[in-house]
């Protein structure tokens, strides 16, 4: 029993008493765990991580879980800036094609072995081997160790976002030779594939149920972690997560459904944090030949008859920023170009439809919606708005897994896709907007845009880059295949006893090292 009973919410004393007196027999004995350090245990309620492989596990719970075990070379701070971590510093060659990283010395893995350059090489080679999504920003590179504590990356071409690639959320530093990262072992070696240098050590794991990590006593940063341990409680149902927080069964939850935030607002012992991010639902109209959005006027009609302000206010309950027509949102500061969205004008949309198709109304079109977050409400509201603009749609809700796994999201004419927050806008352009991008789900191909994207990727200067992005935004507002109703605020909630918690715009990257529990 490592948990001090004061953590259990004391509100229901009467019934507790009632039931303690009912303790007639002891059914189960809880396996005791080595006493935790000072600082208490943070209990995090989140969806169960499905893919524990650091190189491929990509969603918040997966990253959050692995982030406690492993460290990055470079961290991305909540404000999207970079901070040294296992890499104490780095240098870029003048031609911009060679990066040299100095590593922190004296760092040990959980099994006591030393962290060296070989581990870094292993990690990045593995990213290449499994074609991790991290390569999206890393581009083509070679990696080599130079002694035990220096690593040299050689780039095939200019890449202004290379450091963000090194800081990619998939780039957890693994121990050299780890065979099946993220796969549970047998018997005593059950966690032998979970060896990192991270602040916490995996002590217990029950798939789909819970995981418990103890503080890494030999962590390389003095005084960290401050917590004695972290317990992840896997709760797939968002409502249940809220209930769990309210009843004191967990201390921290994130990515709350906006419509449920109000439930927590009256609670005095719960602190709600809201972080603006670039996470957004992407309404995309497939625009290659023979598809719905082949004609730019149709795409424009969708934009005209989508009332972003109202959607943000109603469906998103005002938690976020008004969306636009491309994935470069206001959180990127200088990179964001303020281009006024066309005013909601359903009559104009009807005219465009009439013009483009010769028919009074368009549709009904099958509207595929990823069954995530509040997308269902969004779809229903869009159905209404679009209907005013002479577009009729049939909503088809798709389980996220099925939608993406079946590649439906790449095929359908009209759909809503969820896109998470990324530290730099370039990644969206590389993987989603460019004509040859892997996930060009809209099948949008515009030579002018492609040219601008390529240009931006080698432009290191912020202002120059912002200029290019503004051009892209302008083009996409005119003839792009996207409608983005809003950029979401991410909402987390923590018990007021949790201190030092700063939620990341990509909540999976939230840093627990300086978090503590204060009873």
């Amino acid at each position, binding site marked *: *029993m*490592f*948990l001090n009973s004061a*953590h*259990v919410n004391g*509100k*229901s004393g*009467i*019934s*507790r008493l009632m*039931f*303690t007196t009912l*303790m007639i027999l*002891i*059914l*189960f004995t*809880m*396996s005791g765990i080595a006493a935790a350090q000072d600082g208490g245990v943070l*209990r995090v309620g989140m969806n*169960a*991580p*499905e*893919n*524990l*492989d650091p190189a*491929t*596990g*990509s*969603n918040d719970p997966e990253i959050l879980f692995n982030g406690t075990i492993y460290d990055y070379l470079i961290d991305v701070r909540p404000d999207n800036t970079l901070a040294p971590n296992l890499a104490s510093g780095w240098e870029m060659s003048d031609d911009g094609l060679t990066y040299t990283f100095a590593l922190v010395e004296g760092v040990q893995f959980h099994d006591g072995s030393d962290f060296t350059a070989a581990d870094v090489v292993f990690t990045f080679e593995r990213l290449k*081997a*499994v*074609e991790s*999504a991290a390569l999206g920003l890393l581009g083509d590179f070679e990696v080599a160790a130079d002694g035990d504590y220096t690593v040299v990356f050689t780039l095939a071409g200019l890449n202004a976002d290379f450091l963000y690639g090194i800081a990619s959320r998939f780039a957890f530093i693994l121990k050299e030779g780890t065979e099946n990262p*993220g*796969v*549970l072992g*047998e018997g005593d070696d059950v966690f032998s594939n979970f060896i990192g240098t991270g602040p916490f050590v995996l002590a217990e*794991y*029950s*798939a*789909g*149920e*819970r995981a*418990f990590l103890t503080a890494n006593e030999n962590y390389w940063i003095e005084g960290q972690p401050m917590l004695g341990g972290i*317990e992840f*409680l896997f*709760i*797939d149902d968002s409502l*249940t997560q809220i*209930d*769990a927080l309210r*009843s004191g*069964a967990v201390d921290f939850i994130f990515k709350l459904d906006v419509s449920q935030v109000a439930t927590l607002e009256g609670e005095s012992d719960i602190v709600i944090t809201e972080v603006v991010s670039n996470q957004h639902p992407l309404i995309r109209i497939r625009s290659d030949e023979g598809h719905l959005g082949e004609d730019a006027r149709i795409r424009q009609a969708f934009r005209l008859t989508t009332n972003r302000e109202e959607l943000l206010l109603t469906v998103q309950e005002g938690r976020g920023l008004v969306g636009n027509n491309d994935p470069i949102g206001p959180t990127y500061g200088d990179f964001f170009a303020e281009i006024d969205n066309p005013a909601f004008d359903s009559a104009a949309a009807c005219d465009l439809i009439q013009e483009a198709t010769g028919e009074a109304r368009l549709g009904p079109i099958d509207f595929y919606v990823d069954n995530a977050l509040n997308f269902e409400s969004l779809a229903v509201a869009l159905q209404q708005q679009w209907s005013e603009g002479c577009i009729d749609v049939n909503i088809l809700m798709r*389980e996220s*897994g*099925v939608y*993406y*796994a*079946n590649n439906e*999201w790449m095929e359908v004419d009209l759909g809503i896709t969820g896109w998470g927050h990324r530290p730099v806008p370039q990644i969206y352009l590389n993987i989603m907007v460019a004509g040859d991008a892997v996930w060009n789900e809209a099948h949008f191909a515009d030579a002018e845009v492609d040219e601008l994207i390529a240009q931006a990727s080698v432009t290191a200067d912020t202002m120059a880059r912002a200029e290019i992005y503004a051009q892209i935004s302008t083009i996409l507002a005119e003839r792009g295949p996207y409608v983005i109703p809003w950029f979401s605020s991410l909402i987390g909630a923590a018990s007021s006893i949790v201190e030092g918690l700063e939620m990341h715009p990509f909540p999976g990257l939230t840093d627990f090292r300086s978090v503590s529990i204060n009873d």
Partner: protein
Amino acid sequence: MIRYVIRRIMLLVFTMFITSIIIFALTQLLPGDIARLVLGRDASPVALEEFRETHHLNDSVPVQYANWLKGFITGDWGRSFTRGNPQVRPLIMDRLANTARLGVMILVLSVPLSILLGVVAALNEDGILDSIIAVFSLAVVGLPEFVTGVVLINVFAHQLDWFPSVSFVSSSYSFGDWLRALFLPSLTATLVLLAYIARMTRAGVIDELKKPYVRTATLKGLPQRQIIVKHVLRNALMPTITVIALSMGWLAGGLVVIEQVFNFPGLGRELVDAVTAKNTPVLQAIVMLIIFVYASANLVADVMYGILNPRIRLE
């Protein structure tokens, strides 16, 4: 009797075999590429291929099935596709243990109470008490668990704040915490079972009361209490025992909704997860286990029935 049990076990094995084929076939039809489902949409083709290779998904379906069957029989139930690929058997057994705890609590709550209600109603046939119990059970018996569950959460967890609305398992739980956590889900299932068992008991007792042997016992001059307890209940409760055993089977598979409502990490929730994740090894194992528990409960019911009922016992 032994022959009968052997026969039943053979039928059980047959049923499990057929069902395993059906489930396996269905999972092949489940939409979505398993590898992509597990690895997520960022997964690269290489990673997908590696996943398929690791889990032998490139073999033909009959080969996959044969491998699974061989493994299942020899106790190697394979590894889950997701969540760190744990061994399926310990994973499922752990879930089963949780569900069993819930089940025990449900039975402890519902069985004595429902039998009592049923007997009281029967002895008071068409009286006021009987009508009250009848209306209560008719009203409750058909209510979906999610309705009763949601109402109970609302009243006992949200309004009164007596019990937690979530009953996930934490290692820090004391026995008292366990009881508290299990109370609402148990109550939800109890309400469904209570009405059901009480109705069956009532019908059984009323049926028996009409039988000529009750008249014989009365006309032997036996006291009423002895007639009810020794003669009537002995026979009337036999069908009830079957009902209780059957409801144990129901508990094994039917707790899906309740476990979902209360986020309880039991077999039912694992099953829903396995279906959505197309996690075939886990899905197969759970379905087999549920069928096994269900059929075993049936078998135990029949054997108990046979032991209590000399007419069957000696045939």
